[in-house]
């Protein structure tokens, strides 16, 4: 049923189904060659490894085009890449829905538009560094449209929020925190939309939700940290705030509401959720506001109160190590050494970082996210290939990143999630146990401090956030999903009964959906077993596939030649690889 209006969808987006492939995929302009100190792209394997950390995955042409070039210059070029945004696609989807005759089906379709835009952005966007940083930030500043409530029904709200993160991803932390505070999606999600000052006559108090979470999750955390991100241990309290700080700060976030701008009809409801919140002056508390040692005097108006509060929060010494450590976890390693966190926090605090080729990045202002991200990616801990003497280095790729890495490594053609039902709701434990912008709560898909019980990493006291998603249901669930991904074929070649029923939809153009998310495997099926293994190793495990995994693939390929078509041998080898520890753990 969902597919009935694909034509409208596709036309609205200006895609004709054959334009996306190949455009913009060749690096331009040419990057200068290596100068010796800047060897992140020193070999194809190193290039793929770097891009696995820094982007949604390396494409084959990236490995070819970037190897031997300067990663510093690549980083600088990424800073200039225009941002790929979600709102234009979501707006087009609403326009299509409004034009549609069969309203219900169109609406159902339209509600999936944030998912559609996410996958198009991360697979087709040429601003990979920015997209990946926004994705990391979305796991700190969490909103979710998985609740089936207003944020689901009005996809513009979360699209606008994602765009804020995409646009602010390489900007300044303090500015981003402020724009997040004024975002309608966040105000709805953390319930300060329409939040009112206290009313002594009824006993009503300001909503404390945002005041608490902005401190606990978005900025400083609950305990004092040293520069390396370790909790400060000393006699007496080392907690960063008390409940009195929360109730004091809660007064700051009163009086914010949607900017209706006089519009209240169906066509404009989306627009209302894309404008920064406005102040309802009479709802804002004019009491004195005390928190974290800051005192905002009585009679301070809303915008001034918020500015002062954001300044105070962003200036707290915890922010650098608190945010820096989480960014390291998202890009490079789950349990970073304190010295690594400290170097990243210093880049955050100084607002500057010098790339390996000597180019400075960052504005010099505290909280510069470009400098912070550069410090994460170009740190010696991230760049040197870990030896077996460093068993604690690395991270699990989260499910969304496993999928994106596979899609990019094998050059899927059309990326119409509408053509691949699994992607429209990948939250269930039997699918990916993760869906973009659909965490179960503001505490994200997993916690940065998660230590997995009953594991060797847990016994060593190492944090491993992504392991929180791994259990007896999700392990087979992921394998089953990747089977469908790897064995996906064009629908022209025959479909199941279920798909035959879809044929009855007279206005459904199946041509695009039929080609959506098909991996390009033709060139692989003629390779010898050894060459196939080498190719898979380069693209998925950046040349670090273990001997035991190679042996398993070799054994499989050698034993199955009589039984399986070559292309199926390739598919099974890919399925084995994407379900192996070698791929799931990024080192």
């Amino acid at each position, binding site marked *: 049923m969902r597919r009935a209006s694909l034509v409208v969808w596709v036309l609205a987006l200006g895609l004709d189904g054959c334009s996306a492939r190949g455009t913009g995929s060749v690096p331009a302009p040419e990057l200068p060659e290596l100068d010796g100190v800047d060897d992140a792209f020193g070999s194809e394997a190193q290039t793929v490894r770097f891009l696995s950390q820094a982007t949604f995955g390396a494409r084959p042409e990236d490995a070819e085009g970037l190897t031997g070039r300067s990663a510093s210059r690549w980083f600088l070029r990424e800073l200039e890449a225009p941002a790929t945004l979600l709102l234009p696609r979501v707006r087009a989807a609403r326009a299509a829905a409004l034009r549609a005759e069969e309203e219900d089906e169109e609406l159902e379709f339209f509600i999936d538009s944030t998912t559609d835009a996410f996958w198009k952005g991360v697979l087709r966007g040429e601003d990979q560094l920015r997209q990946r940083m926004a994705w990391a930030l979305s796991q700190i500043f969490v909103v979710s449209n998985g609740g089936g409530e207003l944020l689901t029904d009005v996809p513009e709200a979360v699209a606008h929020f994602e765009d804020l993160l995409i646009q602010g991803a390489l900007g300044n932390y303090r500015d981003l925190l402020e724009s997040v505070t004024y975002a309608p999606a966040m105000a709805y999600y953390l319930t300060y939309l329409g939040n009112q000052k206290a009313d002594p006559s009824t006993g009503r*108090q300001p909503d404390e939700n945002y005041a608490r979470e902005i401190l606990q999750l978005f900025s400083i955390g609950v305990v004092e940290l040293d520069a390396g991100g370790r909790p400060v241990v000393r006699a007496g309290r080392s907690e960063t705030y008390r*409940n009195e700080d929360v109730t004091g700060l809660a007064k700051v976030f009163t009086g914010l509401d949607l900017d209706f701008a006089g519009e209240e009809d169906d066509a404009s409801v989306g627009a209302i959720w894309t404008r920064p919140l406005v102040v309802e002056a009479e709802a804002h508390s004019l009491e004195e506001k005390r928190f974290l040692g800051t005192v905002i005097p009585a009679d301070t108006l809303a915008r001034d109160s918020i500015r002062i509060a954001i300044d105070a929060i962003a200036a707290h010494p915890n922010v650098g190590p608190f945010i820096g450590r989480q960014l390291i976890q998202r890009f490079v390693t789950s349990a970073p050494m304190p010295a690594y966190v400290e170097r990243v926090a210093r880049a955050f605090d100084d607002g500057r970082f010098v790339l390996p080729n000597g180019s400075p990045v960052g504005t010099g202002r505290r909280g510069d996210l470009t400098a912070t991200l550069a410090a994460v990616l170009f740190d010696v801990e991230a760049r040197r290939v870990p030896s077996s003497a460093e068993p604690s280095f690395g991270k699990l790729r989260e499910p969304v990143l496993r999928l994106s890495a596979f899609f990019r490594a094998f050059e899927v053609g059309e990326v119409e999630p509408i053509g691949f039902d699994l992607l429209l709701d990948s939250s269930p434990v039997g699918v990916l146990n993760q869906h973009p912008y659909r965490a179960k709560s503001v505490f994200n898909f997993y916690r940065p401090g998660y230590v997995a*019980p009953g594991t060797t990493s847990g016994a060593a006291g190492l944090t491993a956030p992504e392991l929180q998603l791994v259990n007896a249901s999700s392990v087979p669930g992921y394998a089953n999903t990747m089977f469908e991904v790897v064995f996906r074929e064009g629908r022209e070649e025959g479909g199941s009964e279920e798909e035959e029923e879809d044929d009855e939809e007279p206005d459904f153009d199946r041509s695009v959906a039929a080609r959506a998310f098909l991996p390009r495997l033709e060139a692989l099926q003629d390779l010898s077993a050894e060459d196939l293994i080498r190719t898979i190793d380069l693209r998925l495990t950046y040349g670090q596939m273990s001997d035991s995994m190679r042996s398993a693939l070799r054994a499989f390929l050698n034993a199955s030649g009589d039984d399986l078509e070559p292309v199926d041998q390739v598919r099974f080898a890919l399925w*084995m690889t994407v379900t192996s520890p070698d791929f799931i753990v990024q080192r």
Partner: protein
Amino acid sequence: MNRRSFLLRSGGLGLAGSLARLPLARTARADETEDYRALVCVYLSGGMDNWDTVIPYDATAYAEYERHRRSFLSAYTTPRDPSTLVPFAAGDSFGSRQFALPSEMAGLVQLYAEGKAAIVGNVGPLLEPVTRASYADQTARLPSRLFSHNDQASTWQAGGPEGTTSGWGGRFMDALSSRNGAAEFGAITTGDNDLFVTGRSTVPYQVSVDGASRILALSAMEEDFGSEAPAWLEVLRQHFRPEPGAGRSLLEQDVRSLARRSFDANALYDRAQRGVPAFQTLFPPSDAGAQLQAVARAIVARSSLSAGRQVFVIGLGGFDTHSAQAQTLPMDQAGLAGGIVAFQRAMEELGLDQQVTLFTASEFGRTLAVNGDGTDHGWGGHQFVVGSAVRGGQVYGELPEATLGHALDAGGGRLIPSLSVEQYAAPLGRWFGLSPSELELALPGLANFPSPLPSFV
């Protein structure tokens, strides 16, 4: 040999029907002499509002309650007023005070009247008894990070803030694991909250509401080839059932070990579930109903799973009602109560109602003061304990008045708990079979609180 084409592809995975059926599991009804006990924790994520669950019913107290909650009290579909609330007999210790549950939870009042459900009032995380004075002048030792969701959830389940590594459900199992023939299924979660059922040695098994998960293509091919499995299929099987422990990094070792453990446990669980007959009792289509039905099905298969003692945890969301409380809470409470009643009836059907005890937990209650259309994070809250072994039809502990400024008010109607989580947990552990010394080990803070323990079970 011919080249095979794979039917599995493109959605052809609906193979469950063709899987071989094992002989029916032995009769579901319990043997009178069977040594089996289970604890089932129903964890309510977000902090269920104690004030909007156990509601004052006598006219004076209701009027006071109404005054505090007026701003959204009119917004409930079914009004929360004496005309629809369902009263229950709280007992002599409450004098003339009367209480009721919302109409959406009428089923729990029925169980209460049957003596199969008790209410335990004002339970919450404490390190030692706290008074309003010792809270106000900061001389009380307090659990760290009060009022924070994740930390109080962890404190409830495990006795310490986020990062604590074992929960008391799991530690109960640690003490009694020798009663089980196999360790895999002593602790089971249907979703999150695996911390509660993780012990120092107990590792929880995760089951979905649909039962054990399998790697469908592998199962289908093994089924298809039967005893003539080719060598490559064996390679594939070994890949998905890897030798545990190997790997260049700790995380690789963990991924491999978890894959192995999952594979074996799912296969065992799947086999145990074959032929389990449907219950006569109908479970409601709520989240609670689905998860509790999965628990009930695991209990049916207990002997195939070699389990003589089991701890379960299910998780329900939606209780963090900062906003739209009147619109969302009743539905969640209806789902909760309906699920619990069905579960109790299913246990009665199995003849296991004396041997299975269910209880609720939630990271905190909420403020009595409102913030417009919702409420904020509190501290103590009221819990339900259900089962035929429960000394039901009574309220244990305190139900503080719906006023501000009383001796248990930490501000805004956040209740200073008058029973610690340990005092709530200990009777459950004792019933489960832990000795006093085992209880102390599983609940390290217990000795800081006065005895005797509440005697609800």
